[in-house]
């Protein structure tokens, strides 16, 4: 496959390039956290963030061009929302913390497997890119959001104060899924 086909154009897909840069920074943060505690979970995060950066950098262009501004803005808000979750409360029982860790790992595993399946169709804002119906997408319509929700349930478990952010985040995932379904129905 030629470079012309696989690389997006910097001027036509600034959001892809910007997203790739952000994911690359996240990979660096995950790398630092792995170096500090040698937790395998962070290796999973490094792999996911680097893969997301690569796919955003080389993704297929949107067939229909960028969607409405409010859709794009809400999609970015939805992506950034998990960053503001509160930390676990200090009195959280160890068993609950472990249960939350297991859920987080499963959630990120599901979303990362989905990321590799969707590969060059990956994007934050709803857009008309080649539809993926293979692998995990045969069983779940939006496995990446499912993975995020599983991981965010874990965050809610260790600090109930997070329920408002969790509610907003899950609502936005449903909304994004609905918009993506309608975009693909129009194809």
């Amino acid at each position, binding site marked *: 496959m030629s470079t012309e086909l696989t690389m997006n154009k910097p001027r036509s897909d600034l959001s892809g390039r910007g997203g790739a840069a952000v994911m690359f920074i996240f990979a660096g943060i995950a790398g630092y956290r792995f170096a500090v505690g040698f*937790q395998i979970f962070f290796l999973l995060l490094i*792999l*996911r963030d680097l893969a997301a950066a690569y796919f955003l950098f080389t993704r297929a262009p949107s067939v229909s061009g960028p969607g409405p501004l409010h859709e794009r803005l809400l999609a970015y808000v939805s992506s950034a929302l998990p960053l503001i979750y509160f930390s676990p409360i200090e009195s959280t029982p160890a068993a609950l913390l*472990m249960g939350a860790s*297991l859920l987080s790992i*499963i959630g990120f*595993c599901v979303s990362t*497997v989905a990321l590799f*399946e969707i590969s060059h169709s990956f994007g934050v804002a709803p857009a008309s890119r080649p539809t993926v119906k293979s*692998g995990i997408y045969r069983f779940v319509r939006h496995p990446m959001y499912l993975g995020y929700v599983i991981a965010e349930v874990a965050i809610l478990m260790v600090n109930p104060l997070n329920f408002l952010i969790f509610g907003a985040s899950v609502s936005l995932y449903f909304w994004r899924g609905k918009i993506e379904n309608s975009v693909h129905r129009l194809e």
Partner: protein
Amino acid sequence: MKRLFQGLVILLAIGALVQAVVAFNSNEAQAIDRHEPGV
């Protein structure tokens, strides 16, 4: 290639799950050794 990376993701996740359980068990064992209350 895609399947290879997905396999790697699943292996890393299994490793992380095992590491989390082992860390929990080891912390619990240490707490019992120290006779911490509530353990």
